[in-house]
């Protein structure tokens, strides 16, 4: 391959990754600027003077630990719930035949494309009727039926050789034991990575928790962040950026820890 051609492709990727990274760099940098610095030289990458004042102010203004615990609890609840329903449904879809299976599957997939704005009101009304407002359970409940999760688990199960499940069938192993003793151990890396993805997404979730969690004591990080951001870009911009930086710490950590699994599972092979 001529050298010049490779460079062109390389350039494209560099450009895109720059587009992806710049906002993050920008955020971290501004979280270390004073309000004045930020106002004058918002787009300057290196702060002219590094200050921790924003983080200190935050610590005074909000119960950071409570908020982090709320976020963590909600994300854990959602993750466990989605893993359980997703795993069981995917297994049922994969290894059982029953009437209407194809239709049921079509319904599941089609719901992926129903915009959240459209279903949030009905869901809100239900959660409010059963008195789960302001609870993590209220946030988690409607997410238990999650078609994306089912499909992620389905594609993990696709990699299990048919002969293996047929051996289970020939040996007359009951379905729940087969799932527990053979299928789950085999797709353990996928479960970990899908779980990590669930957790991070739930951690970052904003629109739906806004509806359910009205009480300041039940706020999660993205909700608290919203208090510092007006539509026009925030009254105290560096303060918002400091809270943003705190918000992405946990996802980043989880990503780094489970990186191997996540990479494998997301692009299941990807590059050599």
């Amino acid at each position: 391959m001529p050298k010049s051609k490779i460079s062109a492709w390389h350039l494209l990727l560099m450009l895109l990754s720059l587009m992806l990274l710049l906002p993050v760099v920008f955020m971290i940098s501004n979280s270390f600027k004073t309000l004045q610095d930020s106002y004058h030289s918002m787009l300057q990458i290196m702060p002219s003077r590094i200050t921790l004042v924003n983080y200190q102010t935050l610590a005074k203004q909000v119960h950071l630990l409570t908020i982090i615990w709320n976020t963590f609890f909600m994300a854990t609840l959602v993750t466990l719930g989605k893993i359980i329903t997703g795993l069981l449904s995917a297994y049922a879809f994969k290894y059982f035949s029953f009437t209407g299976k194809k239709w049921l599957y079509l319904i599941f997939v089609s719901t992926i494309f129903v915009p959240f704005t459209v279903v949030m009101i009905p869901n809100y009304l239900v959660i409010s009727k059963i008195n789960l407002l302001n609870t993590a359970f209220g946030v988690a409940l409607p997410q238990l039926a999650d078609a994306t999760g089912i499909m992620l688990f389905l594609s993990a199960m696709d990699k299990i050789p048919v002969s293996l499940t047929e051996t289970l069938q020939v040996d007359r192993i009951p379905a729940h034991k087969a799932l527990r003793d053979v299928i789950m151990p085999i797709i353990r890396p996928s479960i970990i990575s899908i779980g990590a993805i669930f957790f991070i997404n739930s951690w970052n979730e904003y629109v739906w928790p806004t509806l359910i969690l009205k009480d300041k004591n039940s706020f999660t990080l993205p909700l608290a962040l919203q208090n510092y951001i007006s539509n026009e870009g925030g009254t105290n911009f560096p303060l918002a950026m400091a809270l943003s930086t705190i918000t992405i710490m946990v996802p980043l950590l989880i990503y780094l820890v489970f990186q191997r699994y996540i990479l494998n599972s997301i692009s299941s092979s990807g590059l050599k």
Partner: protein
Amino acid sequence: MSARQAIQLNNVTKKFKKTTVIDEMNLQINEGEFLVLLGPSGCGKSTMLRLIAGLEKANSGEILINGQDIKQDSYFANNFAMVFQDYALYPNMTVYQNLEYALKVHKVPKRERQTRLNKVLNMLNLTAYQDRLPGQLSGGQKQRVALGRGMVKKSNIFLLDEPLSNIDVQLREKARDEIKSMHDTSHQTIVYVTHDQLEAMSLGDRIAIMNNGVIQMIDTPNNIYNNPINLFVAEFVGVPQINTLTGEIIDGQVYFAGYSLIADYSRLNKLGLISGNIYIGIRPENIHVSEQPQNAASIPVIVDKIVDYGRYQELMLIIANGQLIKATTTNNQFVIEDNVYATLVDKKILLFNQQTKQNIEYSLEN
């Protein structure tokens, strides 16, 4: 071998969408028999095995195992062992756990499990590997574990789907011998699917040759080789392939390239054929090549090509009419372009009807 039937298929038909894969199949397999299903890829042999195992459902017909219809729920769980091409060992369990798992689930008491496992591990030389995971085993060891999984269940029917195809060519002979010796010791009923005729010939009590969802012939290896029912069977079995020549019957005599081939008149008289075209089948090892004609039917040929396989040599011979025939010999002394004579061994000549492709002289008693 007892005459009780372990497996019985009555008019079984299996279709995938509109394609008929198994067509009105009838088959009886005796208890303790080693039956090999042999055929080209796509002939339906694997589907048949899967039907017997209950992994596919027949569209019509019935399948009886030890006299019981497999559609009944009562049908005994531990009857079967199935060995897949990839062995299908549980990758997260050690060899010991792989063998133990089904017994544990079906609540065989612990002491009983241990006794059975130790016996089988010993028999298959797997004791040293019992704590290894399948990923740490060679192909041959995996195959033994897969067999062992059936043996600890005390299965009396083993279904094997090309169990040697994932083993290195050089080790297949040994792996084959292990299957054979398991059968010799414990007399399970074995149904063995393969596309490899050497495997089939060396393992099977009987071989069922399949094509297009139909059993063409089911018989002992010897009869299949020497007394094939039709041209398909004759051409499918044997390496190098049988020579198929176009001959003619004139006045009750078989002519090929102007030579009258079969001296034995009584054999021809029995057929009652006076004239018409036929196919003549003659295996390469039944063509003798010599410098001088051996009898009146020796055909003058030219050596066109010689391939030396070490143990034997294959001669490509061109007849005056341009036709090519293959002969094998174990001590070839000819070179390319030699003018020699080919003599077809009279008694080994097979005659096939040109329309039906049936062996004209085929008889069950033969």
